[in-house]
């Protein structure tokens, strides 16, 4: 049995996934911190221990994410677009879903990826210039409202009429939200409003790229059922969120690529032998 690992170094969190020849064995998420390579090493080690695998069990590591080139122990690195596509299409095929569009909302960026009929990237749009429409915005909200990120979704679903958040910048939105709280507006309505605000921004990116069903939704915020609902309302389509932790789809994709590359290497060796 061979083991492969994918490491997704995001700006906020690092995700590690370990797979074997047949299935996903496990994954782990932790804050990236300042020293990416050390963090990646640490998380991988912890995960292997958890899986009761030896330290050197992993045959090949592929890294992705903004810090991918800093992971010296990775055999290869790949863009997060490709890794995300790999992971999403894999999850899709497992579920019998044809993925044609991917919406990824990360800690500090958000992307929309359009795939052609053979599952290859044909276009993508990214918002990496500002925090509006990203996980960071939601975290800020939670901090101000003193609720847990995991509670946001459920709370927002209680809203009957969301409050529109007008600020397009996450920093100004913070002031706007504080003022709403001061005027005793319901938290559910404010959170729902924030969700629609993000959905609106994502919808504009989707419009540039073109929406084709089925739309796959991943990244940490995909766990937020309220955000999912807002996106579904604005995009007028159902979103598919993988049943496992959607935050690790890209890391899984990187691990799958590591496995593929390993198989290719074997083939090449076999041919030249």
């Amino acid at each position, binding site marked *: 049995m061979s083991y492969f690992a994918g490491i997704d170094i995001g700006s906020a969190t690092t995700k590690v996934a370990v797979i074997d020849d047949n299935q996903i064995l496990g994954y782990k998420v932790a804050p990236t911190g300042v020293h990416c390579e050390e963090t990646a090493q640490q998380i991988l080690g912890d995960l292997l221990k958890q899986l009761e695998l030896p330290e050197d069990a992993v045959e090949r590591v592929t890294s992705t994410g903004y810090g991918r080139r800093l992971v010296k122990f990775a055999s290869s690195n790949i863009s997060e677009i490709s890794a995300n596509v790999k992971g999403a299409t894999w999850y899709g095929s497992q579920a019998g879903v044809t993925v044609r569009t991917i919406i990824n909302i990360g800690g500090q960026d958000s992307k929309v990826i359009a795939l052609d009929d053979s599952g290859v990237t044909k276009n993508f749009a990214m918002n990496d210039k500002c925090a509006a429409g990203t996980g960071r915005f939601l975290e800020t909200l939670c901090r101000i409202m003193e609720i847990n990120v995991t509670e946001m979704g459920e709370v927002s679903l209680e809203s009957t009429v969301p409050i529109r958040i007008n600020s397009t910048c996450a920093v100004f939105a913070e002031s706007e939200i504080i003022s709403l709280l001061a005027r005793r507006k319901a938290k559910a309505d404010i959170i729902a409003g924030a969700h629609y605000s993000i959905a609106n921004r994502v919808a504009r990116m989707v419009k540039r790229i073109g929406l084709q069903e089925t739309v796959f939704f991943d990244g940490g915020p995909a766990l937020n059922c309220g955000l999912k609902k807002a996106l579904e*309302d604005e995009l007028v389509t159902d979103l598919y969120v993988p049943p496992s932790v959607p935050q690790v789809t890209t890391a899984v994709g990187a691990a799958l690529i590591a496995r593929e590359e390993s198989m290719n290497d074997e083939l090449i060796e076999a041919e030249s032998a």
Partner: protein
Amino acid sequence: MDAQEKRRRLANKVKVNLAMTVREIFDAIEDEPSRPQNMAYFDRIFKTFTDGGKGAVPREEGRKLIGTYCLFVPEEIIYAAGGQPVRLCAGSYDSTEVGEEFLPDVACPMVKSEMGFSALPVLSFYQDCSLVALPASCDWKTKMGAIMEEHAPVMMMDMPRIKESEASREMWLSEIKRFKREVEKVTGVKVNRRRLREAIRLVQRAQVEFDRFHAIRKADATVISGRDALEVLNAYFYDHAESWTAAMSLLNDELEERIRNKTSVTKPKAVRLMLTGSPMVFPNWKIPTVIEELGGALVADEFCTSNRYLHDKVAVDEGSVNDMLHAIADRYLLPCTCPIFSTTVDRRDRLLQLVEDHRVEGVIYHTLKGCHPYDLETKLTETLLRDNGIPMLRIETDYSPQDVEQLRTRIEAFMETLTGKRRG
């Protein structure tokens, strides 16, 4: 997703966004310090837009809903035939996106918005109409009928453009008579002399209250905000004339009391402004809101959706149905200052009268993008007002909330010019 499901979801999207827009407006209104108590009756009508417009239009058992556009369709005839009129002119940005599927980009936002509401079930009174009377007033309205036919029972009404001739008068009268026959078919009630006379009086009673309101706004003290003035007339689109009249009467009593107490919603010596041009329908209140946030007093308007709506009276000469129909036809055509007509004289006179009666210091000329009739009269109006010493600010915009800050800057600068002019 099948087409039916997609349609339902799209309607839901518009509904959610419209609800947020309406909520935003009324949340802000809550914070206003000196609003007349009796505005609550009118607020209720618009708050129903967060929930499909349920309860906005009175739906008495069996009453047929007759939709209208513009201010050319005689409500007297609808009431006389036992129907309930509802004016369908729309002001929602959220439904314009849907309308854009049917209309060219350059179409005015109002027709896009109306088209959106007609094509998707968001506000129920659009779908509940048994007949929709659509006057071929401007180019957009003329063509909108054919596009809308699939979604609503449209009856086009032909309109003269040169109203001064006897031929025009007769043509319009025959259209009114045709309208009457169609409404009778829908409601199953014949418009006889008694019913028509009563209906004319019903609308006249509403007009009496409007006249009081109009006079109240001439006072020195701005006892009601311009936005609220737009609101109460906009409410007449939906409400039954009888209940509207009763509510207006209470509001007018309260406002007359305010005049006596000198209770003003603006600071003393606030700059007195008038709005004219393409109409502003709820929830498109961004401009009156900005004006009043800047401390301006919006004392008058010349909108077909507001100040002009109940202005002109039916002058009944003789008591027969035919004579009453003549009077009704004339009332809805001859004094109308809509720029779709070739003449500009009536509008010119009305604008000057309003400026004088309400001691207006500056006029804001509002054109919706794609609204050619109003656009065509901009220069004429600017010259007319300048010749009478009244500065004018031109604003061209649509329903999008994106340009509010630019508008704020321009209106603020305009108001500063007017204040400067006083000192000079």
